């Protein structure tokens, strides 16, 4: 029952017209250009946000747990504030992507953040990147390419794309 609820939203989603699939699930649709932009934001915002946090914290003197107020003050420094803003953008983009794509489709995009960090290290910070790391960059990039060429969403029978689109306006009206 739990798996049915998670997969279909039945019992959770009040707009689900059918309680359980009557026909087999299938894979569907390609992404629109603006949806690729959302995935790009997922890939870029998290590593950039982490980098900003790291840079901001490095500029501050050592913070002790006996003075937790210093951590609060750190939030308002420019680099850390920028890092938090970027991480909020990441989470919003991630949630948006999960609303129209499978978790296993979005996962490689989040993993690509590791590649972005390596590229920042090499091209911006001029750090040495070993050949093992370049192989890692290549493998994750290949994984993203693999998944991006396939369908983005598994359609369950109670969530066929046309039905789903039709259900959403009534859902928002209910809000």
């Amino acid at each position, binding site marked *: 029952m*739990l*798996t049915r*609820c*998670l*997969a*279909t*939203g039945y019992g*959770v*989603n009040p*707009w*689900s017209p059918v309680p359980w699939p009557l026909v087999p*699930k*299938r*894979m569907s649709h390609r992404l629109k250009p*603006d*949806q690729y932009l959302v995935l790009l934001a997922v890939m870029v915002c998290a590593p950039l946000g982490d980098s900003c946090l790291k840079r901001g914290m490095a500029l501050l003197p050592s913070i002790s747990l006996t003075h937790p107020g210093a951590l609060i003050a750190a939030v308002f420094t420019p680099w850390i504030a920028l890092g938090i803003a970027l991480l909020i953008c990441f989470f919003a983009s991630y*949630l*948006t992507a*999960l*609303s*129209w794509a*499978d*978790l*296993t*489709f979005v*996962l*490689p995009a989040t*993993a690509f953040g*590791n590649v972005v960090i*390596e590229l920042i290290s090499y091209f911006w910070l001029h750090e040495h990147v070993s050949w*093992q*790391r370049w*192989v*890692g*960059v*290549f*493998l*994750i990039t*290949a*994984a*993203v390419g*693999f*998944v991006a*060429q*396939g369908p983005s969403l*598994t359609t*369950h029978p109670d*969530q066929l794309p046309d039905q*789903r*689109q039709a*259900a*959403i*306006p009534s*859902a*928002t009206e209910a*809000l």
Partner: protein
Amino acid sequence: MTGSFAATGPLAATGMIAAIVLTSTAGEVLTAAAMKSIGDLDVIRAHSGLPGAIRAVLSSPLFFAGVFFLALAFFSLLFALNHLNLSLVGPAAASLTVITNSVAAKLFLKENVDRRRWTAAALICIGVYLLAH
């Protein structure tokens, strides 16, 4: 590898990493289930604006369950980093989470995890491991 376990035993280290992986997977799957039950956020935003989209997300109990487990995963990570080396916890948790997420997505979200996606998960595991070394 044994140096990573210096302060704790391998069993405790395995337990800590397992806690991170399991809570993280539960959080990701519940969040994904919440977003699927809400529907396409782009369409909701186009129809009701950003406040409507935020309201739709915040009205989902599954979303809060997901965030709760993601918070547990974060604190599990902090706890593990207090006892184990980052070079062990980071790649182990990151790569195992990719696999458990794929399994959980197939089992609980009924996603069609085809050969293409399994291959990608395996490549990411190896890639994350190589990036950490």
